[in-house]
């Protein structure tokens, strides 16, 4: 069972594209009793699109390197991105169960003075918030309630699937992020094909800008079904897809204009943290939402 201290694995997108999300995590988690410590020198997880797609060992070894950083801190990893969570946890699983691969990985890691031992676990921030901190504690820690606000929750693929390794949620009927959203007073609304992909992963955003927007458009049309006030996710890559993707669609003349938040950003705002630090970077406007429901400019 994870304790109150976590090795904070920020990944790539949060620290380098949405550092306001990073701030929201750094500042909300300790208020709920979960202290986060930097994994100094942590590299890319790496994701499925590049290294995993060409060779298993290179992906596995880079993941192992990241895990060894947490091992040296003697703390379980808190992943804040679905991709990071999926690939780190999957690697951890392979390395723990497959001795032959572990030895091959350690042979390479030895060259950089590291050794994978298999002493830490990987958690997604949603699991930590829901399972270990709990909905009640979150409810009690917020100052501003978003009663009557409708949120479309997007889980993202790699928090749920493949479920037999990740085991973070019921893959066909997840509820944790919905419960967390409702802890802020919001209503998590139904929309069709809620578990389907945002269209960003697997190299799709980079390789096929047109296709990625088509998939996103379908996703947004489904979300539009229940006319929510905002989209909430706990994956920075899905966040990026919704944020930049909506801009892409807007440039093509289709403006959905649905504000997007990473969960901890809303949590921070509800706790009264300053908007500038926790929710100030986005291409899809959300100041209106923040002003309307939080009364902050």
């Amino acid at each position, binding site marked *: 069972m994870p304790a109150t201290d976590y090795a904070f694995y920020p990944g*790539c*997108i949060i*620290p*380098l*594209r*949405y*550092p306001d999300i*990073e*701030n929201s995590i*750094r500042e909300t988690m300790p208020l709920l009793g979960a202290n986060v410590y930097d*994994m*100094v*020198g*942590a*590299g*890319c997880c*790496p*994701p499925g*699109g*590049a*290294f995993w*797609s*060409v*060779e*298993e*060992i*290179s*992906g596995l*070894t*880079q993941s192992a*390197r990241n895990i060894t950083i947490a091992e040296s801190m003697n703390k379980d990893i808190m992943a804040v991105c679905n991709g990071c969570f999926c690939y780190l946890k999957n690697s951890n699983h392979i390395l723990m169960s497959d001795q032959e691969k572990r030895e091959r990985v350690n042979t*390479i*890691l030895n*060259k*950089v003075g*590291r050794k994978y031992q298999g002493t830490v676990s990987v958690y997604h921030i949603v699991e930590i918030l829901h399972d270990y901190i709990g909905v009640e504690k979150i409810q009690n820690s917020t100052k501003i309630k978003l009663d009557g606000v409708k949120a479309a929750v997007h889980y993202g*693929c*790699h928090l*749920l*699937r*493949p*479920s037999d390794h990740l085991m973070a949620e019921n*893959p*066909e009927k997840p509820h944790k992020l919905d419960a967390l959203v409702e802890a802020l007073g919001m209503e998590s609304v139904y929309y069709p094909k809620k578990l*389907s*992909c945002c*269209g*960003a*992963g*697997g*190299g*799709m955003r*980079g*390789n*096929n800008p047109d*296709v990625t927007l088509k*998939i996103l458009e379908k996703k947004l049309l489904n979300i539009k079904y229940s006319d929510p006030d905002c989209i909430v996710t706990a994956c920075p890559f899905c966040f990026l897809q919704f944020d930049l993707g909506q801009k892409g669609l807007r440039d093509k003349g289709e403006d959905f204009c649905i504000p997007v938040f990473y969960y901890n950003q809303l949590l921070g705002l509800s706790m009264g943290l300053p908007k*500038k630090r926790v929710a*100030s*970077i986005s291409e899809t406007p959300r100041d209106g939402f923040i002003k309307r429901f939080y009364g902050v400019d």
Partner: protein
Amino acid sequence: MKIILNNTNKDLVDKVIENGGKRVTECFQCGMCASGCPVASDTDHKIKRTMHQVLLGLDEQILDKKAIWLCTTCFMCLERCPQNAGPTDVVIALRRMSAEKGIIPEAQIEVANNIYHLGHAVTVKKGISLREKVDAPPLTTAGSDKKYIDEIQKIVDSTHAVKLLKIRKEWKPKGDDVIACD
């Protein structure tokens, strides 16, 4: 075009299994994979057909075309496959085999080079300026110090990935960004 099944690659199934698509033979073509696929309607990536092509040994039809690189790896097919045939695993295996033939899309090469040179999948310099804007603490991840990037480079250099992903020693990331730790 009529396909003569005798002339197909009889080793394809074994190669796919070797590369991680371990349960490909379990497929009985029910179509569950394709019916939930987010890209099927907009692209040539037809996962049910791909599974069948593997079983029949039709490697040219898969590896020489880029459809397998259109998978978003959402794992919906793998999650729901009633035979646990692992369609996503099969796609990944095929990508590995495709990369061996030198077929790999540009975006993959760019991300891999970013990781190799910057420690991250995205460029770093832009990130650092954004961090300053929102009063984030100084970056401590791999992109913050050349010694961490050296580690990653040593790791990648020890694997085939360096060749497969066309890692270039002279790399200039896209945009106006520069390598952070030069």
